[in-house]
C-alpha cells in the first residue's frame, strides 16, 4: 500500500545527513497533513505556527531519540509516521491547554477547543453505534467507514486489505438489515 523506503530509513538510522535531508523532504508533508488533520477533526482551533511546531517536534524526536531504529518494517513507515504525528499533535494541544490554564487565561482556552460543526456527524455516529452493536467487528468497521466517513467500497477494500466483493456484500446485507430494523421500530 505504501512506498518503499527501506534504504532511506537504513541510512537515516546510520545518521547520514543526506539521507535525513531526503527524509525531511519526502515526509514533512505527511507529518504536516496528519497533525493538521488530527487537530481539525478533534475540533481544536490552531494556527499554522502550531502545526509547524508540532511537525518540527516530530522530526527532532526521530533524530534525537533515534526513533527510526525502532521501525520493524522499514519498507513501509508512512502509517506509523502519520500516527506518531497525530498523537504528538494531541499532546501538544493538551499541553498548550494546560499552560493556558496555569497562566489563568481562561478566556484563551476557548480558542484551543471549539465546535467545528461536526454535531450532525456525531449524532449520526451515535445512532449508528447503537444500531450496529450486535454486528461482527469487521462489519462494524465497514459500515462506519461507509456511512459516517463516506468511504467508497474500493477505499474500504484498500484500507482493510480485503476483497471489494466482500465489502460490497457486507454493506448491502447490513444496510438491508438496518432498514428492516428501522421500519420495524417505527
Amino acid at each position, binding site marked *: 500500500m505504501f512506498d518503499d523506503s527501506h534504504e532511506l530509513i537504513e541510512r537515516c538510522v546510520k545518521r547520514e545527513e543526506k539521507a535525513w535531508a531526503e527524509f525531511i523532504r519526502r515526509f514533512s508533508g505527511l507529518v504536516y497533513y496528519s497533525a493538521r488533520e*488530527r487537530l481539525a477533526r478533534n475540533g481544536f482551533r490552531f494556527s499554522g505556527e502550531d502545526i*509547524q511546531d508540532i511537525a*518540527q517536534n516530530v522530526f*527532532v524526536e526521530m533524530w534525537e531519540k533515534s526513533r527510526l531504529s525502532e521501525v520493524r518494517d522499514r519498507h513501509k513507515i*508512512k*502509517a506509523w509516521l502519520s500516527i506518531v504525528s*497525530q498523537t504528538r499533535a494531541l499532546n501538544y494541544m493538551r499541553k498548550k491547554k494546560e499552560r493556558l490554564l496555569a497562566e489563568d487565561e481562561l478566556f484563551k482556552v476557548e480558542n484551543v477547543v471549539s465546535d467545528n460543526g461536526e454535531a450532525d456527524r456525531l449524532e449520526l455516529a451515535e445512532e449508528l453505534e447503537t444500531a450496529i452493536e450486535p454486528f461482527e467487528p469487521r462489519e462494524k468497521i465497514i459500515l462506519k*467507514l461507509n456511512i459516517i466517513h463516506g468511504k467508497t467500497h474500493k477505499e474500504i477494500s484498500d484500507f*482493510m486489505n480485503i476483497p471489494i466483493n466482500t465489502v460490497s456484500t457486507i454493506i448491502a446485507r447490513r444496510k438491508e438489515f438496518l432498514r428492516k430494523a428501522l421500519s420495524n421500530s417505527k
Partner: protein
Amino acid sequence: MDIMDIRCLDEKTLSSYLDERLSEAERKKIELHIADCNACLDMLLVAYESRGRSKKCPAILKNRIKNRIGLKQAKNRPGSKWLIAALFFFALSFIVRHYFLQFLAISVVLGFKWVMEGEGAKRVIMIFRGIQEKEKKVERKSPPDVSNIAGGDRYGKPE
C-alpha cells in the same frame, strides 16, 4: 471525537494494520479494537488518507527542521558567478587588446572575490579568527606562574 485512552493500541500496533503484512489473526485482533474505538479508527483513517495528500508543506518548515537538527542546508553556489565574470574579463582582455591591462585587472579582482567566497577560504578565515581570539584570551590572562622557576613551594610562595 473520542479521546484516546489507556486501553487504546500503541502507535506501532495500530500502524501495523496499514504498514505491515499481518496474519489474519493479528488483523482481527486490531479490528476487534478499532470496531469499538472511534479514536483509533479515525487515527488510522487519517494515516490512510495522508498518503495521497502529503505533498504540500511550507518550504520554511523544511528549512526550520533541518536547522533544528543541525543539517547543512542545500546551498546554491553564489561564488560561481564571480568565477564566470573573471573568466569573461580574462577572455575579453585578449580580444580587446587595447584595454588588455584594465580587463586583466578586473579579472584578477573578480578572481580574488571568487576565491574569498569559496568554502575553503571561509574555513581558513574562520581558523585564523579562532587563533586570533585565542591569542587575545591568553594575553588577557595573568602572567604565567613563575614560582617554580623562582624556587617557590607548591602554594607559589617563595621559601
